[in-house]
């Protein structure tokens, strides 16, 4: 069948539009972050005198280095705890049929739909009681609310698809349950673990409400909160160059990870949403 030239033209026009809208804002953030002084207030699409002054300034004048390592610490911790707990739970929920399994799955799923603010006062009390207020552990604990249900659900989906024979052979050999889960299933679930781990990492890295509420001091802030709270006296004084530099630093690693693992991510997203 011959292609209609009008259709081809339409396709490329639409694609150009999508490319422009997807990429331009981030491109402009990079351009702005390289501009300084009054150059920032010209809307040229190319920095005339590119400089890294903004990037140096956020590390020197703000506690951005500490904010970055906080975010890294919290997000990594959340991923480790979520994957560890959900590997155990997903084995039980995905491969053993026991009474109440369906109800349990529904309960876990419903937790992921809790609005975060509805937990805020109860969680605030819990965190204070545990003495975790203004500490990164509070955020790690709180973030599990949305990452754990998600990792359990996605891993159950993948766990269920593993062939039965492997398990039977393992049981024949008298292998213990933890060996079965971590030594036999875990290597097979590698792509699923990468996908769910990465999505949990992104969710924790981006989390804002808990981080804003449960930390107080500048040293305990994660990057989204630090970025949201960079401010000047008025909208005229907002240090846009610094803000854009911080934004670029926070986003580049995420975009890199997402592009490297894009196939896994798409399968993880669809396992979590469409199949669920």
């Amino acid at each position, binding site marked *: 069948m011959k292609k209609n030239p009008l259709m081809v033209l339409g396709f490329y026009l639409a*694609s150009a539009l999508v490319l422009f809208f997807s990429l331009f804002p981030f491109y402009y953030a990079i351009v702005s972050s390289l501009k300084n002084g009054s150059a920032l207030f010209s809307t040229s699409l190319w920095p005339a005198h590119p400089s890294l002054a903004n990037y140096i300034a956020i590390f020197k004048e703000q506690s951005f280095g500490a904010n970055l390592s906080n975010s890294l610490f919290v997000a990594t911790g959340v991923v480790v705890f979520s994957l560890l707990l959900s590997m155990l739970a997903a*084995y039980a929920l995905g491969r053993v049929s026991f009474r109440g399994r369906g109800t349990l799955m529904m309960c876990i799923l419903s937790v992921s*739909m809790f*609005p975060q603010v*509805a937990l*805020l006062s109860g969680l605030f009390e819990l965190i204070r009681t545990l003495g975790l207020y203004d500490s990164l552990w509070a955020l790690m604990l709180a973030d599990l609310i949305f990452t754990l*249900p998600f990792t359990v659900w996605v891993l159950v989906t993948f766990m269920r698809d593993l062939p039965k024979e492997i398990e039977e052979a393992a049981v024949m050999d008298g292998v213990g349950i933890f060996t079965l889960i971590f030594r036999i299933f875990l290597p097979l679930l590698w792509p699923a673990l990468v996908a769910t781990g990465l999505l949990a990492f992104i969710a924790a890295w981006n989390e804002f409400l808990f981080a804003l509420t449960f930390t107080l001091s500048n040293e305990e802030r994660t*990057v989204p909160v630090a*970025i949201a709270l960079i401010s000047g006296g008025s909208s005229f004084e907002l240090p846009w160059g610094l*803000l854009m530099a911080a934004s670029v630093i926070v986003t580049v690693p995420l975009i890199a990870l997402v592009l490297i693992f894009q196939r896994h991510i798409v399968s993880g997203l669809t396992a979590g949403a469409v199949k669920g």
Partner: protein
Amino acid sequence: MDDSLIARARRRQAYWLVLPTVIVLAAIAGWPLLRTIWFSLTNAQLSDMSAREFVGLANYIGEAGVLRDGEWWHSVSNTLFFAIISVVLESLLGLGVALLLNTPSRIQALLRAAVLVPWAIPTVVSAKMWSWMLNDQFGVVNAALQSMHLISTPLAFTADPHLAFPTIIMVDVWKTTPFMALLILAALQLVPEDCYEAAKVDGVPRWRVFRYITLPLIMPGILVAMIFRTLDALRVFDLIYVMTSNSHVTKSMSVYVREQLIDFQQVGYGSASATLLFLIIALSTTIYMVGTRRRMENAA
């Protein structure tokens, strides 16, 4: 005999394996939710949450209760409006983008990668980026619109009461359309190839193929994605908080609740509005679960 013994042992083991997850979720989600509901029946203050009295439903229906607060109802209508408009726009655009991504071409890989970029950018960052681009004095958007002679004076996108809401929706649509597109793309790729082959042989026009074959087949996928996004949109916080902070015009339910709880320190009153928000979302979730029960039963 032996088999049932093993099966029974496995079932017992299964309970132990699920237990840690259940305990963690009960402790950090179940218990706090119950406490929030309990606080909503008291006059607790943030400074000293232990000094509180039971006030019954006063926080809900009392003289100064949430249900009598015009500001609350304003935030409810804001949130519903935001959820409906943005989810509809995202679904339509997402469908369009998904169709582009599904078309074999030389730029397919590039397109797919580019579409992931807005999705990978943290909400706070995209809110700040757009605030900068939409800045009334130095923003590139105003400059572009002016140079094309579409407007004569710069627009105050986030400050103008008429523009603030459409602006927020536009930024949300920018950020979450990729998510929608990816989910719809996944549904598109499940459509069996022979459906198209048959249509091609019969010479059915493209748009009719789309209307009568593709669309009905991907509709369940689109609906699930829409419901997920709706539940998300009803909780909207980051975007509105960062772009228009405490503006009355764009306040969502989550912004309202946090303001009462933290800024005004009214834990009792704030918890009451939090409980109402929870009920609204629980109701939506229930409708969703009843609607897709068969899908769930297959999965569980």
